[in-house]
C-alpha cells in the first residue's frame, strides 16, 4: 500500500514536471526566395528574460546557438540544416557591445553601442538562407524547426560537473558489491541545465507554388 502511495506521489511530481518538457512553439515566419536559396526571417525575442538581458553587460560572453531544420510535412527527415553561433561581450572600458556571428556565409565581427540593439541583432533571423531551392520541390509542403540555446553547456562540462555526484568518499570493506552495483545512490543532486534557456519554434507549413 505504501509502495503504491509512493508511486502515485512520484507520478504526480512527474506529471507536474512534465510541464517543463520541450514542446515547439508555433511561430509565423516569413519565407522568401532569393536567388537560388530559400530564406527565412523571424525573431527569437523570447530567448532573453530579464536576468539574461541584464547579463549582457556583465563583461562575460553570452552565446546564442541556433539550429534550423527544414523538413517535409509528412516526414521527419530534414532536407536542410543550418547552424549559427552568435556571441556578445560587453567591453567595460569602451562601453560597447562586441559581437561575433559565425554563419554558413562566414564570420562577422562588429560592434553595437546600445544594449537593446545588441539584443535585437542577436535574436533576429533576417533573410537567413536555409535551403537551396533545388531541394524544395514545387507544391510540396514543408515545415521549419528552430532550436535556440542561450549559453549552451558542452556535454563534457556537463559530465564533469555531474561527475562529483558519483564520486563517493571512498569505499570501506564492501568493495566487490559496490563495484558490481549498477546504479548510483546520491541524495544531493543539483543539476546543471544544458543551457540557460532553450527555445524551440516551429513555423507554419509552407510550400513553393508552381510558377
Amino acid at each position, binding site marked *: 500500500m505504501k509502495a503504491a502511495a509512493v508511486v502515485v506521489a512520484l507520478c504526480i511530481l512527474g506529471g507536474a514536471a512534465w510541464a517543463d518538457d520541450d*514542446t515547439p512553439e508555433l511561430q509565423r515566419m516569413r519565407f522568401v526566395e532569393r536567388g537560388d536559396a530559400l530564406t527565412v526571417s523571424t525573431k527569437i525575442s523570447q530567448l532573453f528574460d530579464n536576468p539574461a538581458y541584464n547579463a549582457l553587460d556583465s563583461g*562575460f560572453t553570452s552565446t546564442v546557438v541556433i539550429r534550423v531544420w527544414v523538413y517535409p510535412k509528412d516526414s521527419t527527415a530534414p532536407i536542410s540544416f543550418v547552424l*549559427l553561433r552568435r556571441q556578445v561581450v560587453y567591453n567595460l572600458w569602451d562601453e560597447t557591445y562586441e559581437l561575433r556571428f559565425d554563419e554558413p556565409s562566414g564570420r562577422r565581427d562588429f560592434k553595437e553601442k546600445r544594449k537593446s540593439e545588441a539584443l535585437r541583432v542577436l535574436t533576429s533571423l533576417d533573410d537567413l538562407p536555409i535551403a537551396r531551392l533545388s531541394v524544395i520541390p514545387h507544391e510540396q509542403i514543408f515545415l521549419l524547426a528552430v532550436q535556440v540555446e542561450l549559453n549552451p553547456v558542452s556535454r563534457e562540462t556537463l559530465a564533469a560537473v555531474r561527475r562529483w555526484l558519483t564520486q563517493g568518499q571512498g569505499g570501506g570493506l564492501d*568493495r566487490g558489491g559496490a563495484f*558490481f552495483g549498477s546504479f548510483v545512490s546520491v541524495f544531493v543532486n543539483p543539476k546543471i541545465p544544458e543551457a540557460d534557456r532553450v527555445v524551440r519554434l516551429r513555423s507554419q507549413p509552407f510550400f513553393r507554388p508552381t510558377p
Partner: protein
Amino acid sequence: MRRTALAVAIAGCVTVIAPARADDEPGTGPSAVEEPSSADEEPKGDREFGPLLVIERIDITGNTATLDEVIRRAVPIAPGDMLRASDKRLTEARFKVLALGYFRDVGLAMHKGSRRGHVIVEVHVVERGTVVLNRLWFGTNSLTPYWVGADVGERNLLGLGIGLGGGFIYAAHGDVDGSRAQWATELRLSDPSLLGSRFGANVAGTIVRGSEAYRIAGTDGTPALRELRAFPYRRFGVRANLTYDADALTRLSAGVRLEQISTELPVAPTLLLPDQRVTAIDLHLDPGTSYVITAGLSYDRDTRPDPILPHAGAHLAFAAELGSPLVGSDYQFATLFGRYEHYWPKYRGRHAIALKIAGGVVIGDAPRFDRIHLADVNRMLTPRAMGMVLSTAAPLALLQTRPDKPTYGDLGGAITVEYAMRLFRGKGENRVYGGDLFLGAGVWGLAENIDLRARDATTWSSLPIDVYIDAGIRFDTDVGIFEITLANGLGRLR
C-alpha cells in the same frame, strides 16, 4: 541581390489549400526530426574574441561556511592572468565552482579595475546544505526479520572542502542455529583535491559484527532455515586511497587495506547432499583471528553527460587488488573486477539502448568476504550491505540450468541489455529533473574454480548461468534518485 517575387506561400495560403491536421500542432514534428550529425559540430570559437583583460583581483562573496580559499582553488583563473573576454576559462569558471557541490547557485560578475583593461571578477555563491543522505537500507525476509540502516555524509566539513561520512546498519536474526543479530558501521574521510591539486585522498574504517549463514543440507532452491547454520565473525578494517584525476572524466587510484577478521568457525563444516552423502565444505576463512593486507589499483573513466539517467556516453572501470603473505596477509589472493557500460541514444536522445558488462575473477586463497557473492551479479537478490549477507534466497531458475548455484564464486559477471525511454525532462522547478521507464534483461553467471575443472552432468545442466530481468521507473529529483523496479522490490523481500 536579385529579389524574386514572393514565391513561397505563407501560413494562410497553406491553411486554405491544405488544412492543418492534428500533427501540425506544436509538439510534433521538430522534436521527432532525426538531427543531422553536423548538428553536434558547433562552429569553433577561439580566444581572440572580445577585449583583452587583466585579472586584477578575484572577490568571493556569499559564502558563510566555505572558506574563500576552497572556492579560489576551484576558479581556473588567478590575479595577473591576461586573457580575452571569451576565454574558455572565464566561461567555465562558474561550472568549476558549481562542481564542488557546495553551492545551490554560482554567479559571476566583472567590474572595472584600477587601470584600463584591468578587471575585478566577483564570484558570488549561494551555499546549500551539504549534509547528505547517501543510502538507506531496509527490508525483511525469513533469514533476517528486518534490517534497517542509513549512510550519511557531510561533503564540506567546516567549510574546508573535506568530506566526512558514515553509516550504520542493524539486522535482526532469524531462527538459524548459531546466528546472531548483525550490525556494521563505517566512517569515511575524504579530500577530493589535496590543496587544489589533481590528487585526492580518502580513508575509511569499517567494523562489522556479523553472522554468516551457510547451508548444511540440500543443494537446490532457497534453503529452509533448518538447512542452515551460522557462524559469528567480526571484521575491522581500514582502507586508504590516493586518487589522481587524469582529466575531468578520468580518475586513477591506488590504495591499501588492513583488515582483521575474527571468527568462531565450526570444527568441520559439512553439507548433507540429497543422496545422503556428506561432503566437507570450505568456508574460506582461517579460524580464530586472521589478517587481510592488500594493495590495489583502480581506473575509472565516465563520459556519460548524465550519470543518473544516462542516455549517452560510456563508463569504464577496472579495479585490481592483491594480498600476499609477503606484506603480512594470511590470505594470498588477487581480485580483478571490470565494468563497462555504453549507451546509444535513439530518437534524439529520448530513448537509449545500453549494454552493460560487469565481471570479476578471484585468484588464489581469497577470504570469503572478498569472493563474488551471488547478489553481486544477480540484481533480483538482496544485495550485501556493508559486506553483511542478509538473505540466503536462491536465484530464480529461469533457464533450468545448474540448480545448485554457488553462493560465493571465483568467477562471475553479468551482461545486461537495457532499453530506456524518457518519460519527461524538467528544469527542476518542480523538484523533479526527469523520469525514465526502463526494461532490462541479462545473463549472469557465477562459478567456483572447481566447477571449471570437472562436471558430472550434461553441459546445459552444469552451466552456472541464468537470466534475469528488471523493469521499472527511475526518477531524478533534487533530493535524490528514486528507483521503483521489479528487482529492487524482490531484493527487499526475498
